[in-house]
């Protein structure tokens, strides 16, 4: 079986349609939307089109879970035991089990919210972060950055379920959230162990994590104000082992990504 599988070779049936993040960035409507006052972007009942926005986000979580499963599976397979110790592979296998369960939960939640598999497009940039050639980079990019983002997303959806009185959404998100906390801790633990004698490698991995954190905060997607659809879940992140300094850094990266996204929209509009 091939090692280092590129995103375009991921197996999907005809229901799935791929999209490119560039199509979204270069959409000529972006600049016009930013001129509108359409209210806070935070997901809440009574906010503009909250049902369809929640359905769209839930489908994004579903495809993200598939890619997280594929990423952890690849990390268990792509490296020999000198690069990735057997105990790390066991942890990745255990994570695959969690992600497979999350995929099933997400499908059921999608049905509950009136969404069909493949109703929305799939972007593969989550899996792309799991294609790094060094397992430590994958642990930072996927387990610490993306599973950290999953904490923020699940916490936001759990709160949405709570305030909208949807017991199914709140319950399911809470269970998945608990798993994500363990995935982040797993990533932090293996980062320390694999780089104990190699500070340069650790710094490279943390740099990669910063890049991924910033990418996934693009255009203000994640942050700490009412303008951000996804809120930084400080308390849950602390439980996952992030320090206050690390969380502050993610908040700063998110703000920077928001400003850069805005600049990119304006540049695209004036081009």
């Amino acid at each position, binding site marked *: 079986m091939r090692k280092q599988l590129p995103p375009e070779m991921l197996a999907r049936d005809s229901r799935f349609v791929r999209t490119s993040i560039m199509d979204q960035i270069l959409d000529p409507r972006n600049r016009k939307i930013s001129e509108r006052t359409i209210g806070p972007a935070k997901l809440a009942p009574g906010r503009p089109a909250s049902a369809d926005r929640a359905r*769209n986000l839930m489908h994004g979580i579903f495809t993200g879970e598939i890619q997280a499963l594929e990423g952890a599976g690849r990390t268990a397979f792509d490296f020999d035991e000198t690069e990735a110790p057997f105990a790390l592979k066991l942890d990745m296998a255990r994570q695959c089990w969690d992600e497979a369960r999350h995929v099933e939960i997400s499908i059921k939640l999608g049905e509950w919210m009136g969404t069909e598999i493949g109703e929305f497009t799939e972007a593969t940039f989550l899996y792309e972060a799991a294609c790094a050639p060094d397992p430590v980079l994958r642990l930072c990019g996927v387990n610490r950055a993306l599973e950290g983002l999953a904490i923020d997303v699940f916490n936001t959806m759990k709160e949405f379920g709570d305030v909208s009185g949807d017991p199914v959404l709140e319950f399911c998100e809470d269970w998945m959230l608990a798993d994500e906390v363990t995935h982040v801790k797993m990533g932090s633990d293996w980062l320390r162990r694999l780089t104990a004698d190699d500070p340069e490698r650790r710094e490279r991995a943390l740099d990669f994590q910063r890049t991924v954190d910033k990418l996934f905060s693009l255009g203000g997607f994640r942050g700490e104000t009412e303008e951000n659809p996804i809120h930084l879940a400080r308390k849950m992140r602390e439980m996952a082992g992030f320090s206050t300094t690390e969380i502050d850094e993610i908040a700063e990266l998110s703000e920077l990504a928001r400003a850069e996204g805005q600049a990119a929209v304006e540049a695209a509009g004036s081009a």
Partner: protein
Amino acid sequence: MTVVSIVPELFTLIEFDAERIKEIASEVAKSLAFPSDVDVHIEVDEVLPAPLNSSQADYLGGRAELWFTGGAFEDTHKGRHIDEVLARCGLGEALLRVKDRISGGFEDAPNDSEISERQRALWDAYADGRLTRLEGFVVREPRRRYVYRLECGFNDVADAAYDQLWASDATTWADLLEIEARLMEADPTERDAKPSARRISLRQTQ
């Protein structure tokens, strides 16, 4: 034959064809037996993409005034392009509600900019239920049920009211207000009385 007009006549940000939307609207009006002496004016706000989906349907000055976000008709697989099945359904819901306003028991209903999200969810369930019983409309019932539950509550009373509306061919605005009162009793959670995703709020510029 129903006279249909549209704004804009030329879309510049998205790949919608105004003439094609007018054709679909005419076909839909015919299949709903929409009064042929009532003109239909459609406005599509091309700035607002999916999933910012919203619409309004009013009967003003003897004319049907329909407003949609571009997202309401947008293909979820191919951004900026129209999904004609979705457009047909959206136009069907809107024209059915205008027909209700003209002579279907909703003559005294306030304009869409003044009704609450909950009232709108109830009315939409009633409209979609009727559309499913007509030929040529693909209504995504599970989506409608979720939007409804979000506004009307996740409880048995709300579900029973939904089934009642879905199966009905003769509900009035007064019936709708009676159902709303029943829902309030079952789930007294305070909700915004004002609509959130309507024409005025979404078209404001900074």
